[in-house]
């Protein structure tokens, strides 16, 4: 079944890069939605369901930490797996976000293979 993915990042060029990286992973991807911050992401989720959220941390208006907190507080939305895609690779940040509810973490810079491996691990997909 094709995966519908929401990419949350305040940089349009980074969203474009992640979208291209996903297309290179070989994963079966259906619709790919984009949001510029956590608020946009929550708004987007009222209109369509996604199977996975890839989110940055540092964003204006609502950052990635707040977004994860809001998702976790929602009975329905908390079931959507979140993978953080961030430049911040400090151990404290990774541990904090994983404790908050993130299921995976990919540090920029990353290779498409790294993103694929993390998506497969989080979603429990066996690599073809």
């Amino acid at each position, binding site marked *: 079944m094709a995966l519908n993915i929401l990419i949350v990042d305040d940089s349009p060029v980074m969203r474009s890069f992640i979208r291209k990286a996903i297309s290179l992973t070989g994963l079966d991807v259906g619709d790919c939605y984009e949001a510029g911050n956590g608020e946009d992401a929550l708004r987007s989720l009222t209109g369509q369901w996604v199977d996975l959220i890839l989110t940055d941390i540092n964003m204006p208006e609502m950052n990635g930490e707040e977004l994860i907190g809001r998702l976790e507080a929602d009975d329905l939305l908390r079931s959507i797996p979140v993978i953080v895609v961030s430049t911040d690779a400090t151990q404290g*940040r990774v541990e904090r976000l994983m404790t908050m509810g993130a299921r995976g973490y990919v540090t920029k810079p990353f290779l498409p293979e790294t993103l694929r491996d993390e998506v497969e691990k989080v979603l429990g997909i066996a690599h073809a």
Partner: protein
Amino acid sequence: MPERNAERNYDQMFAEAVGSVLETMFFTAPLGPAEDGSGGACMGARVAFRGIPSGQVRLCLSEGSAQLLAAGFLGEDEESLSPEQTGLVVCELANMLCGSLLSQLESQGHFDLAAPQLEGDAPPPLEQAPVATQSFELENGVLQVALYLESAA
């Protein structure tokens, strides 16, 4: 002796950060060290960070290199890129270099990064000197990276 070790570590940190970011996300690699200040007109960008320590990372990238890197990052022809797109990619480069340097500087630390700021071709001078700076020869110019740390009160 400790100062010399620190200098050597900064050199290594810069080389690892620049090499890793350029090779992984921009599909190019630094050709080697460059002389400071060489390369002519440049695009500047900076990312401020708060934590222990606080400071900022600034970069200055030759215009030709900026276009080449933006094209590699976005997978498009250089001619089709707008100046805005190139500027956004330079900001992302600064963002990733900052994150990479901080994770090497204090992997156990906690930092908050501000949004990257484009500084154009005439970056405003800072009052303080960088704790480390390094220049890299790229295919179409030079990338200069500088790390500034606020001194503890």
